């Protein structure tokens, strides 16, 4: 029974991926392209060594973003504001990192702590507004995203930008000195001549993933969190303080969100620039949904999304618009949530039937007694 259940839950994302392949195949056929060669090329290209490094580098920030979202999801809190949280965090952490000179480990720690603090504070606003004023975190985090963009660009243009920019397009913060950067894993793993280094920040992402599992499934706090998510009323009655839980969860979620931009900042960009990656927060929501808030599921989903992005680069060389993968990702998200909902209904119906079965069984000897 348990195995069949697990298989059922696993079937949902697989069906969603299959469906998205179908939809994007139709899109490709409409523009007279052979979907089989397109997807074949993607797999062939995306499984080469250099591309795998690139996939892992891209997957780590997506994974962090999804964990930030998932922590909220576990207690029915919708943190749509990861986007604004990691943006402000990256901007301010980059500025702090560039302003100080410290020994290597301390320097990196200071930058990461700054980023986590900024993310936590920004998410915490939504938490406080929800608890004290009853403002839905869905709306407040959306609004805070836009406010973050405004405040961020104001700070960047007026206070934080490097003074010697040639033009407006080159606006950026000052460079973080070498002691504040993250080393690559290439030497450790014996990787030679990669196109891009494998960022050591991967280890941080893994650590966060493990911490997420331990905190949510193996601690009292996590138990309260999940209990509140499943049935807020029951949790409150059993002694959980829902207000404190909301604020704590938003703070943790925001702190993790603050780390989302750090791989790019500390391993590749070394400063906050105008072409810093955006949209990771929204991708995180998608990945948390596909991975069902499960750490392993999220890791798999972020690898999948990163694989699609990296391997799609080969499509342009074959004259196929690589944007087809954006349709694929969109379809995966929408169909996976539908599929999970269908599975949930199926499981529910099974439970009802099983319960009915159980109540019928002990009734049989009773009849015998009566006879």
């Amino acid at each position, binding site marked *: 029974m348990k195995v069949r259940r697990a298989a059922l839950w696993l079937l949902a994302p697989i069906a969603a991926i299959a469906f998205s392949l179908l939809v994007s195949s139709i*899109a490709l056929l409409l*523009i007279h392209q052979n979907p089989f060669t397109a997807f074949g090329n993607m797999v062939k290209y995306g499984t080469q060594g250099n591309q795998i490094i690139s996939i892992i580098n891209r997957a780590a920030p997506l994974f962090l973003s999804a964990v930030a979202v998932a922590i909220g*999801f576990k207690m*029915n809190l*919708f943190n*749509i504001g990861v986007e604004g949280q990691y943006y402000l965090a990256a901007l301010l952490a980059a500025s702090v990192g560039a302003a100080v000179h410290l020994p290597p480990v301390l320097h990196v720690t200071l930058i990461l702590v700054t980023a986590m603090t900024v993310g936590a504070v920004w998410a915490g606003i939504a938490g406080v*507004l929800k608890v*004290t*004023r*009853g*403002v*839905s975190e*869905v*709306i*407040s985090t*959306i*609004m*805070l995203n*836009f*406010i973050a*963009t*405004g*405040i961020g*660009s*104001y700070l960047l*243009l*007026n206070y934080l930008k490097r003074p010697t920019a040639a033009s407006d397009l080159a606006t950026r913060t000052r460079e973080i000195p070498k002691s504040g950067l993250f080393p690559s894993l290439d030497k450790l793993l014996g990787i030679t001549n990669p196109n891009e280094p494998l960022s050591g920040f991967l280890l941080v992402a893994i650590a966060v993933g493990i911490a997420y599992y331990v905190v949510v499934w193996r601690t009292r706090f996590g138990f309260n969190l999940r209990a509140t998510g*499943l049935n807020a009323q029951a949790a409150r009655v059993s002694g959980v303080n829902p207000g404190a839980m909301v604020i704590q969860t938003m703070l943790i979620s925001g702190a993790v969100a603050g780390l989302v931009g750090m791989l790019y900042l500390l391993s590749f960009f070394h400063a906050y620039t105008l072409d810093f990656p955006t949209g990771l927060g*929204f*991708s995180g*929501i*998608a990945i948390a*949904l596909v991975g*069902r*808030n499960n750490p392993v599921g999220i890791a798999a989903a972020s690898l999948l999304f990163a694989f699609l992005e990296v391997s799609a680069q080969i499509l342009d060389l074959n004259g196929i*618009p690589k*944007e*087809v993968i*954006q*349709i694929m*990702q*969109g*379809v995966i*998200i*929408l169909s996976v*949530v*539908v599929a*999970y*909902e*269908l599975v949930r*209904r199926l499981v529910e119906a099974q439970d009802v039937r099983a319960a009915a079965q159980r109540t019928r069984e002990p009734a049989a000897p009773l009849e015998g007694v009566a006879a």
Partner: protein
Amino acid sequence: MAGERTDILVEPVGESPSHPGPRIRRSWVIVAAALLMLVIVREVTGSKELTSSFTFAAALALAVPILFAGLGGLWSERVGVVNIGLEGMMILGTWFGAWAGWKFGAWYGVVFGMAGGAAGGLLHAVATITFGVDHIVSGVAINILAAGVARFLSVITYTTGTGGSPAQSPQVSGTLFQFTMPFLAGGPFLWIHKTPDLLGWFERHHWFLVSDVAGVAKGLMFDVSALTLIAVALIPFSYWWFWRTRTGLRMRSVGENPIAADSLGVRVYTMKYIGVVISGALAGLGGVFLVFEAGIYHEGQTGGRGYIGLAALIFGNWRPGGIGAAAGLFGYADSLQLRSDPAIHALLLFVAVALAVAAIWFVGRKRAVPAAALVILSSGFFTWWATSESVPGQLVGTVPYIATLVVLSVASQSLRPPKWDGRPYRKGQAL
């Protein structure tokens, strides 16, 4: 995943009267008072832009897409479906509107843009109503999907020799008609090409208050696009539909209590589908408006206006008139920012005065705490105005969002969203 969500948006607290008669009269008083204060501030600071017809014309143009999105939100949330996907539906509206506008002409653009948005709405309806997916989840997914679809379609249609690029369409052909009020704003009337521009004449004379009112009125009456007329007409229409027709009542009942509605024979799913699809079509129209203002489609054209529409919906307390007022307010702030820096700076004084007036109102009601808070805020804004030269544009852009957060946290007692807003409903379910 998220099971039962009863707390989306704000908890409905208290009942507001279902008939908004006296409220409308009160809002006219507020509008008149605001205008008077604006004129005084204009007089003190000397920034003519505050009440010029050009500012108000720009404000109207900037308010229209927000208004479309806000009304889109109204049609969806009144039937109990939260629509975060407005942004995505708007993106579909811009793309399909521009594509058809370029291929076939302006009015085809309107129809296709609407259809594109409606398709997004239908997707949201299928996911949330038929499959019971969490409304927020579906909306977020639609936003991501719509951006991807628009990008893909641009790449395959606008590349080879069309004058467009993967990120932007060629010029749309043809224009929608533009309307200028005859006699008052100098528009054509029957066979007369040019009628007197009465309001313009008043505005040019710079008479205290008279010229200001004329400027505001003229700004709202000259070169008004057909879509603007539609958008403005949709405010009373939505009110009439939801509060004066039988189908409208049924639709609202579905958003308040679908179980009760179902027991009375209302087709809950049908009503929800109608509302959400119309919601998408309206958001699509907002996108079309943006395309015709710019003459082309370009990526990121919606710029989060779907979300501002959502803010306008909350700001306007889920009512058509309120949404109109909120959209106008947000559009006005935007237009001042575009037109002149000093005007925005002068607005600080306006805010200070407005807060002071509100403080006096609270003093009259013998409520010391809010009055004191407002006095402090008011003097803060006054100090800001007196000690600074200008307000940074980046911060002005955040005004709608901050205003929404403030309204949500301060006035949530008088906000009254539909009771079943955001909750999934399955036919036959118990409470």
